[in-house]
């Protein structure tokens, strides 16, 4: 028994990788606020689904927290003004996805308060399930882990499915990122309130908070804070990438596997990021909308890394000026280094989906040394792939442009681009990039 406690067998999934974590840079830095950027750029499409429709005119003054765009249909969410100011323009703005898209430009009144002045307090205990789901949509809540899928859609499982377990994702398996870690430590009360709301809205029996075992302080803290009358438990899972991927976490914590082409609801599970639920617990009782989120700014390219509460729409350039951008910076990534997107312009704004800004130095990139060699069939990628695809064959098919065959015979569509295969490849083959192209082309051909 003693031996088992020295080597605790943490729950986990098969395959996966162990990248260097680099979390020590920001793990002990409390969440701080920054001054407002002089101008915020709020893209209308920050979530999966239809873009929001602006409800403000150019020249209109708005107060922090006021709705500025409404949802277009069910799979869409409204936007709220992240600061007090005047709408200066509704025009095209650079986005992290690439093509320019419509955005609301908000000139911020400097000296405006950081307090949210808009919102109507309400008693959530009297709300019905439907009203609760509607309230979640009105709050503009989306998955803050990075996928930005509207939260209220997940609260309503498809007909014939019931949600029995709510998994709360506090894994944060991406290197560098520590925002979820800090949220679990600092916003525990809101988090618990959020979990309670989701349990009510989904009718689930229990909730499990899954946390990687490199954050045992968060697990201890949560276990102390969790109220005894609620069916919520906190559980440590093994530190392994991509533990925080929805499907992996379901397998680790419940032993169930989401069928191909299925949803977590098919195995009776709904997964929420801790950041999403903390915001839900914070905003819903106050009747406010999502206007800011916790962002980890880290990496060797910044002088003062940390965790910050950043208003949505803050340009990345402003954020990096505040933390000190070194001249030797080489690459700026929105999100974590494994699945995040490198940006070509610092004018891109922080959206609801951006959990981190990681800045690498130029010498870290060593592009010249990253020569691509032919596949030597070592099978390292097959060992790494968390969903047991065969990236080696997929990569060879991609090189000869057999994109349809990749989807038809090798389950390309199941790939969620975690990057494990490309990370372990000794030949430096950019496998994940190949798969991204193939998936983009297959989507177009459909």
């Amino acid at each position, binding site marked *: 028994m003693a031996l088992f406690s020295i080597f605790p067998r943490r729950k986990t999934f098969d395959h996966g990788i162990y990248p260097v974590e680099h979390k020590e840079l920001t793990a002990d830095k409390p969440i701080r606020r920054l001054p407002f950027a002089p101008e915020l750029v709020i893209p209308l499409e920050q979530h999966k689904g239809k873009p929001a429709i602006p409800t403000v005119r150019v020249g209109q003054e708005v107060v922090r927290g006021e709705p500025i765009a409404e949802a277009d249909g069910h799979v869409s969410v409204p936007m709220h003004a992240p600061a007090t100011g005047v709408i200066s323009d509704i025009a095209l703005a*650079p986005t992290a996805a*690439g093509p*320019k898209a419509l955005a609301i430009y908000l000139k911020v009144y400097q000296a405006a308060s950081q307090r949210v002045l808009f919102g109507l307090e309400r008693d959530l205990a009297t709300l019905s399930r439907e009203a609760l789901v509607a309230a979640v949509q009105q709050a503009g809540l989306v998955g803050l882990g990075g996928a930005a899928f509207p939260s209220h859609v997940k609260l309503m499982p498809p007909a014939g499915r019931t949600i029995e377990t709510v998994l709360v994702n506090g894994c944060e398996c991406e290197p560098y990122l520590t925002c979820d870690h800090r949220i679990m430590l600092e916003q525990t009360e809101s988090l618990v309130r959020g979990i309670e709301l989701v349990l009510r809205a989904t009718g689930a029996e229990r909730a499990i908070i899954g946390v990687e075992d490199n954050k045992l302080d968060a697990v201890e803290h949560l276990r102390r804070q969790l109220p005894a009358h609620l069916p919520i438990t906190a559980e440590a899972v093994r530190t392994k990438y991509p533990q925080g991927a929805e499907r992996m976490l379901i397998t680790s914590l419940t032993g169930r596997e989401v069928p191909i082409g299925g949803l977590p609801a098919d195995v009776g599970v709904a997964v929420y990021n801790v950041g999403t639920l903390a915001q839900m617990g914070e905003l819903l009782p106050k009747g406010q909308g999502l206007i800011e989120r916790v962002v980890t700014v880290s990496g060797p390219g910044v002088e003062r890394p940390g965790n910050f509460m950043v208003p949505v729409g803050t340009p990345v350039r402003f954020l990096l000026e505040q933390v000190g951008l070194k001249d030797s910076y080489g690459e700026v990534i929105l999100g974590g280094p494994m699945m995040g997107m490198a940006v*070509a*312009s610092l004018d891109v704004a922080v959206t609801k989906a951006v959990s981190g800004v990681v800045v690498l130095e130029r010498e870290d990139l060593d592009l010249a040394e990253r020569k691509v060699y032919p596949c030597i069939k070592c099978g390292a990628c097959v060992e790494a792939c968390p969903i047991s695809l065969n990236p080696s064959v997929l990569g060879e098919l991609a090189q000869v442009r057999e994109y349809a065959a990749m989807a038809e015979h090798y389950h390309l569509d199941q790939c969620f681009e975690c990057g494990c295969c490309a990370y372990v490849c000794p030949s430096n083959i*950019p496998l994940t990039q190949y798969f*991204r*192209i193939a998936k*983009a082309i297959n989507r177009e051909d459909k």
Partner: protein
Amino acid sequence: MAALGLMLALMLVVANRSLYVYEDPRIDQVEDLLPKANCGACGEAGCRTFAELLVKGEVDPGKCTVNAKATNQLIADFLGVSLGNTEKRVARLACAGGAHVAYIRASYGGISSCRAAALVNGGGKGCSWGCLGMGDCVEVCQFGALSLDEHGLPVVDEDKCTACGDCVTVCPKDLFSIQPVSHRLWVACKSLDAGDEVEHHCAVACTACGRCVQDSPEGLIEIRDNLAVVDYTKNALASKVAIERCPTGAIVWLESDGSVTKGRDARKVVRKAPLPMA
């Protein structure tokens, strides 16, 4: 055993009679005269489908842009129809931002393919609409009609281009379109950025100043979303007057010999070397 054989043979005879599908023998003959590139330039699924429609008389032989005119004439004579619309159509690129005039804002180090680069924040080019210059179109062209010039911009060889549209499909920035060769007045820009911003990114972009609109007959050109757009239904009115006062040379006149004429007032581009990173 012999009886069984006889019975099966009889069944085959009956089946051959009752299930016989009559196919016009001319379809095979016409198909033999088609190029069999299955490129889809005619708008049909392939040469076989096109041949079937030809025999039915629903399309004109002239719609095949890959065949030589003489071969199409052979098909027309064989079927006893007229050659039909034979105006040659070619692919045209709506961008002139080569490496010597368009800034890049970040260097891209991944797979050398426009489609791959476009997935990483739209590629490294300053202009979100501009040509990425990695030659996906050159690679996809079956007819060798495309090549990259010294500034990394694709050039269409109008003689070789068959208007099959493969480059239109492959370009992640949707810069190619299929145009009749008579469309000589051409806006070589697709940027929707406002005038002052667009000049930060590219020296030959359309700034939407509207001079071409003023200088051309009513309705030929209009400014739509910060970009000059030519209404080709009024193509007969087009002349070189429209391009003369363009300050950047974004609107050009494409000569029949393949050269490009810019207006008198167009900014002279003397730079040959690529621009440094902005």
